[in-house]
């Protein structure tokens, strides 16, 4: 479903992704683990289409289509979704307005009619309830004044409403207590199935107790250095990232 081939990316003249190659199959949950600063968030931003990165080489394909020249919104309409490690606060934009704009924009891009307001409200309420998101949270501006955990639940709400075919979860577990982590993981697991894939980025193995991965990749200094099954995550948890850390021999 997602194929990244030999991706080289620099930020402010510094190489961050250094020939990264990765393939996530249809229906698969792939995990990427790696030390801080290894380029995981950069990878997620580049796949989502952020403009301020300098892509020097490589391709990214979604369902066989090269998306390198596509805008973030076009990628979203193709079914790509990113759970931000640090979700943005947008003062002045009501959460419901935002959700509606997003859902209708994607429907429009796919040639579907706008969602009637009543139907929209119904969907949001039902999904929000499952994620322990209160009506009060929905009334506030996007993420403004939310705790870290509330922000993450709001990300999962958006994911559940937009039903993306390919989701990247960038450290969804950071800043979450165990209950919130469970709630979010349930939200993700509910979407799992044929035709949907996930790239789960995390620093800690703990997340993979809640979202079981089919494959685990280890990322270091801008590339995938090791791949294996879930046991790889457990091994990492035991040994730490010392052998992969910045400065260590690859």
């Amino acid at each position, binding site marked *: 479903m997602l194929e990244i081939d030999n991706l080289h990316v620099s930020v402010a003249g510094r190489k961050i992704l250094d020939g990264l190659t990765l393939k996530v199959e249809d229906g698969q949950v792939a995990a990427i683990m790696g030390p801080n600063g290894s380029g995981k968030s950069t990878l997620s*931003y580049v796949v*989502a*289409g*952020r*403009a*301020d990165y300098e892509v020097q080489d490589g391709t990214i394909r979604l369902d066989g289509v090269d998306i390198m020249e596509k*805008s*973030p*919104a076009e*990628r*979203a*309409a193709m079914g*790509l*979704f*990113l759970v*931000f490690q640090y*979700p*943005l606060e*947008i*003062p*002045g*934009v009501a959460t419901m*307005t*935002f959700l509606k*704009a*997003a*859902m209708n*924009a*994607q429907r429009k*891009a796919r040639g579907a009619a706008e969602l009637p307001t009543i139907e929209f409200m119904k969907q949001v309420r039902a999904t929000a309830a499952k994620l322990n998101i209160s009506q009060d949270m929905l009334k506030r*501006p996007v993420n403004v004044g939310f705790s870290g955990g509330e922000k993450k639940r709001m990300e999962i709400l*958006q994911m559940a409403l*937009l039903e993306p075919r390919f989701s990247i979860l960038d450290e969804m577990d950071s800043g979450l207590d165990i209950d919130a982590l469970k709630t979010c993981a349930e939200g993700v697991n509910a979407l799992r199935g044929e035709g949907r894939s996930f790239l789960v980025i995390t620093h800690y193995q703990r997340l993979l107790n809640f979202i079981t991965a089919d494959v685990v990749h280890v990322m270091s200094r801008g590339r995938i250095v090791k791949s294996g099954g879930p046991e790889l995550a457990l091994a990492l948890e035991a040994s730490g990232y010392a052998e992969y850390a910045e400065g260590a021999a690859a």
Partner: protein
Amino acid sequence: MTGLSSKAEDEFGRLLPADVTPSARLFFDQFQRAGLPGRRVESWHYSDLRTKLRAVPEMAHAPDDAARAVARHKLEASERLRLVTVDGFFAPDLSDDISAVAGIDISPVGEAEFFGGAADPMLDLNAAFSRGGFLLDIAVGARIDRVIEIVALTGAETDRSRFGRSLIRLGAGARAEILETRDEGFAGFGDSALFIALGEDAQLDYACRCRETAGVEVQTVNVMLAARATLRAVSLLAQTPFLRRQFFVSLAGEGAELKLAGAVILGRNDHADMTMVVHHNAPACVSREIFKYVLGDHANGVFQGKIVVPPHAQKTDGKMMCRALLLSDEAAMSAKPELEIFADDVACGHGAAVTKLDAQQLFYLETRGVPHIEAEKILIDAFAADVFDALESEVLRDLLRTDLSDLLGEEEPAS
């Protein structure tokens, strides 16, 4: 000024009718002595009328049938109680019959009324030339539950000079909601004046939307608030080739309250100058000024705000804020907030900031499938729309919100 008068001033002199009243003559002389304001006059530094107004268009006349037909064409159906002016002249036949509504009275502007107001050459010029304006009186204690709308239209097919002048007076304890829609077309020159006087405990929500303003236009709003009176005034300015909108406010009675706000949305070569002088002339008055500018293309935004607190105005609470969102590198903003405080027990402050659209917020919206242009509009709207919260009237707030999003929908924000 020395004897050198500009061409425009002479032209105004030539346009002054032979049968001009003595008081109008006095105002004109006063105007001529001061001269057309330009960059050398400090308070007009950013809006140089002297270079802008090189030729003075012919005077607008009281509308004839043809002019009224042109104006009528622009009137949309509305629920509101409507007062229409055509080139500054009140047009009763285009207006709703307001005499039927209890608590409201409308009459021609008498010469003696409200000829006070701030010392300003353009206000003097207006006093010299204006004819045909109206005085709207809301009776003591009256509650007007329908929105009153003042619609300023043109009937002219060519450039004209217009000098609209209207007065709004609320008796003690009266309450009203007034919308002003200025849509006089891009042609010509305009120098309008509006006087607002609120009696004790009166409350007015006043929203003004400027849709099309003249090639060169000055709008002056004079406000006088008696004790505990409250004015909430919000302006939405857009499509202004060259506009100076100035407020002169006197908080004259103890405990009066002013909320002055505005959203200024400019593109092309538009120039809009919002200037306000707020005098806290009594103790314990509150004023809040908040203005937001959205500037694209080569637009030029100007904000000048001054809060004046004389020694006796203790317990004054005045705060002023101006923020600009620049959408283009060619757009420019000049902001000059000032405090002149001579009392010691006051809480006053001001701030000004210039920002750009936040790339991260844009990216976030886009990753949710919202196209770039759409995402920009959402953020621009969010930036500007909160100034409408200064109004208590939900109807007026919603009207301005809709107008703003229509404006943003129409014009691609230039980047």
